[in-house]
């Protein structure tokens, strides 16, 4: 962490008064005319405001251009600004963490003008909706036991490799793992489709997030209307209860629709 301090060595030799250059850190984009919550501050405690052009506005705050962000507090601050907007019912299109623009003119010319119609469309889609991240994981030992019990070949290969020292049965172990991985893939497809069916009635849209690991089942971002979120959660609780011996469900949200900026 100390590297940061040395990495931001001062600018080139200058005889001017050392005013550090500042620019705008961009959090997201909103409809023109929306009122931001009072006293909203972002990274470095800078006051957050909007720069508007046409139908949309950029949510920005001043920041020193010599110190690009990257610390945890800055990531958290970025998220907190957007969360505050969500909580206040302000539809917002999130901008990627770490995005800077030089000044008012570039905010308009490089960001707002070129993206106006797309962002306006996204804002329509996001209004009255929020993202929820659902992650389903297997109780690994339970599903592996199912797999061993269901396939005599796997079971036999397991008995063989268990009886030998690790080094002795390398090829057999790879083969066993491959068979188990295939069987797990099949199981996943089946279970994931069941989960998708439960989600579907509540999803204005959904985006699958990548996942891996022996316990991974499904990781999906779901865009849910605010007035359906209660029912959505009740439904998922029912599902979670009915599958809890094999599968664990975890639901994060409501969130700013980070995963849906490319979905419409």
């Amino acid at each position, binding site marked *: *962490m100390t*590297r940061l301090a040395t990495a931001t060595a001062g600018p080139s030799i200058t005889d001017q008064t050392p005013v550090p250059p500042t620019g705008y850190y961009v959090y*997201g*984009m909103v409809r023109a005319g929306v009122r931001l919550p009072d006293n909203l501050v972002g990274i470095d405690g800078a006051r957050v405001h909007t720069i508007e052009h046409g139908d949309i506005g950029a949510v920005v705050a001043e920041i020193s251009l010599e110190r690009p*962000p*990257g*610390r*945890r507090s800055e*990531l958290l601050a970025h*998220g907190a600004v957007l969360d505050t907007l969500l909580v206040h019912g302000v539809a917002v*299109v*999130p*901008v*990627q*963490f*770490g*995005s*800077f*623009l030089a000044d008012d003119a570039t905010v308009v010319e*490089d960001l707002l003008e070129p*993206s106006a119609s797309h962002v306006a469309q996204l804002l329509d889609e996001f209004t009255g909706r929020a993202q929820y*991240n659902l992650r389903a*994981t297997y*109780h*690994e*030992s*339970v599903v*592996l*036991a199912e797999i*061993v019990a269901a396939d005599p070949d796997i079971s036999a290969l*397991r008995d063989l*490799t268990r009886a030998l020292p690790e080094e002795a049965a390398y090829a057999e*172990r*790879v*083969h*066993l*793992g*491959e068979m*188990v*991985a295939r069987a797990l893939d099949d199981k996943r497809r089946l279970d994931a489709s069941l989960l998708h069916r439960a989600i579907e009635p509540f999803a204005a849209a959904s985006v699958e997030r*990548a996942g*891996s*690991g*022996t316990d991974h089942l499904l990781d999906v971002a779901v865009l849910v209307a605010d007035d359906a979120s209660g029912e959505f*959660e*009740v439904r998922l*609780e*029912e599902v*979670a*209860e009915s599958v*809890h011996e094999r599968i664990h*469900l*975890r*639901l*994060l*949200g409501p*969130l700013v629709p*980070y995963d849906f*900026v*490319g979905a419409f």
Partner: protein
Amino acid sequence: MTVQQTHRRGGGYLERPAPSGLADVIEVILDKGIVIDAYVRVSLVGIELLTVDARIVIASVDTYLRFAEATNRLDLFEQGGKDLGEFVGDLQEGGASKKTSGAIQGVKKALTNDSDTSKDDDRPRPAKRPARRVRRSEDA
């Protein structure tokens, strides 16, 4: 850190963490959102490493060996009667995940170790294994 327990209804089988922990924030926010060309300047070593490491795809042989190891660790049939919860615990204690996740855990530690506030999970769900959470870098 508002750890609001939101088991609002039902039997609480659905885990509902407050999304304020660093691990969740990283997963929710990093690499997400509208990309403004050429202006993205995230500098910190830790986060750059994290985004890079997240793109690592574990070679399939390693994956298979992990599955084999996990499968071979099962004692369900021979011993019977052992509590399932213990099995879950066993698997996490000494699984292959430990061998493959060192580098990434290091990065995560770099991001999380300057405070004690990042513990967002208060339920004994299977331990977080960063190496297994491979994130795609779709179009980045």
